[in-house]
């Protein structure tokens, strides 16, 4: 039986003074190994939900538990791929990919020890293997991020996040700045990586087709009214693989849930 990895209990998030609710009583349970896509209109709090899980945002009410524990700041249990600024511009592609293991295994002073260089060589071999898996050449490893296309940068960001072998991978509209062709390639890649690593993925997107193509489960966030925060209005299990003839029907369902601003109970579909 799959283990429950993420639990969100009645979590509310509000900003400003007086507090303006963004998320309102979110209840969500995610099992290990799931690929969950979060859908919703702009400003509905998709990224806020992701930040809650990262630990860079904290609920005013309710709880967020990862593996039964509350986390108050981001750490290496959760990998993160944002839409922009996902790579460190001062490091080469290889240095970006090996940054995680290097920084967690060696302190600033530890880098001066001979063991560091030995370990670094091992990490480079591993990073080159990741480069190959994401479809980049060895020569690309020596380039700086700004010498890569947007799609290549996001591939490297994926490899960088997966190199630390996180239990959860949080992706915030990671493909939304890419052209349609590159986007499709990236969707294939993330599916392959998800299947081979077994990492639990939470993927924020506003693209319904993308959510259906990628996720094993799609949740929709929507606001009841402008004064209220968003809630989960639809929690849909997607057949894996999703049959082509089912997609238009599911798209309609998701889009109508996303546009629905009336108070609605959570619809759970299987």
């Amino acid at each position, binding site marked *: 039986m799959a283990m429950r990895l993420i639990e969100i209990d009645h979590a509310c998030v509000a900003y400003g003074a007086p507090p303006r609710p963004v998320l309102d009583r979110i209840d969500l349970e995610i099992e290990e190994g799931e690929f969950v896509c979060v859908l919703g209109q702009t400003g509905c709090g998709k990224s806020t939900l992701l930040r809650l899980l*990262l630990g*860079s945002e904290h609920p005013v009410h309710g709880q967020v538990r990862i593996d039964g524990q509350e986390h108050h*700041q*981001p*750490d*290496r249990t*959760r*990998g*993160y791929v*944002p839409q*922009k*600024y*996902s790579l*460190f*511009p*001062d*490091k080469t592609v290889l240095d970006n990919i090996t*940054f*995680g*293991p290097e*920084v*967690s295994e060696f*302190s*600033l002073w530890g880098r001066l020890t001979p063991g560091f260089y030995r370990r670094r060589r091992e990490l480079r071999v591993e990073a080159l293997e990741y480069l190959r898996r994401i479809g980049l050449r060895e020569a690309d490893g020596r380039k*700086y*991020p*700004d010498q890569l296309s947007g799609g290549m940068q996001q591939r490297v960001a994926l490899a*960088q*996040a997966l190199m*630390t072998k*996180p239990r959860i991978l949080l992706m915030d509209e990671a493909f939304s700045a890419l052209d349609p062709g590159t986007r499709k390639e990236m969707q294939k890649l993330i599916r392959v990586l998800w299947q081979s690593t077994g990492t639990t993925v939470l993927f924020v997107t506003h693209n319904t087709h993308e959510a259906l193509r990628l996720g094993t489960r799609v949740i929709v966030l929507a606001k009841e009214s402008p004064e209220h925060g968003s809630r989960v209005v639809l929690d849909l299990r997607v057949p894996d693989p999703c049959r082509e003839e089912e997609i238009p029907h599911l798209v309609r369902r998701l889009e109508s849930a996303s546009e629905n601003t009336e108070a609605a109970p959570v619809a759970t579909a299987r």
Partner: protein
Amino acid sequence: MSAGFLLIHAKPNRTWTAVLSWSLFVLGIGLYLYVAHSRHRDNPEERVTPTVAQMVRGMYDAALKPAEDDEQQVQGGSVAQRFFGSMLWKDTKATSRRFIYSMLLLIPAVLLGLHMGLFPYVGVLFTRFILFFDKIVALSMLPILFIVFGIDELAKIMLIVVGVAPTIILDAVNLTRAVPGEQVVKAFTLGAGDFDVAYRVVLKQIMPRILNSIRLNLKAVMCFLFAGEMIASTDGLAYRIALLRRHMGMDVIIPYVLWVALLLFLVDWSMRFVNRKLHPWFRES
């Protein structure tokens, strides 16, 4: 020359770029030579606008003869020996020493700015104070500095630090805060701790811009250094210029001013070169 010579979309070719960019130098030098020649024709004892020959002679004396207070030193020897015992070398060495000390004292300023920008409690502790300090006119503090630190080197170096450090600190704070939050969160998710984020992620990213900021403040550094040297010093380029002013020694003052400009240009060029070599990824947008 294409149509629309003065319009926004004009594109000067290489020849026009070269001609126009040097034209003001040629005009300035030509004007000076004309004025100097006219004044010397009217008054052969004229000292305000020395001729080129007088300036060359003045610079030759400065670069190859010891200062008046060092006359007892050996006057013979090779050109190199004479140069290293000269007034110009002695002054350049003294000014450079103060300049290097001041630059080194800017390192803690950069680190303070980094910590203020990243660690909220450090920011809260220092920001208001530094903002206040930044508004104090450094030269107005000169008497206080001389009283507190004496008229030796320390007061002059402190004047530079007081004058430039707040700007560098606030610049470092702004640059630190401009690093996208995603990068900081990402570093934490990759296993970095607070100091790893500060020194291995943020400092490395802001370093080329910090070097640029220091480079753009070089003139301010030199202004404060010269003020200190002119008021209380027994050596240094500014001390010499102030001393020569009393004797209307324009034949040495003008070459000295050009020498200072050349040194500053070399420091600026070196910093740009080092910045490019150390940060090949950095391209100023």
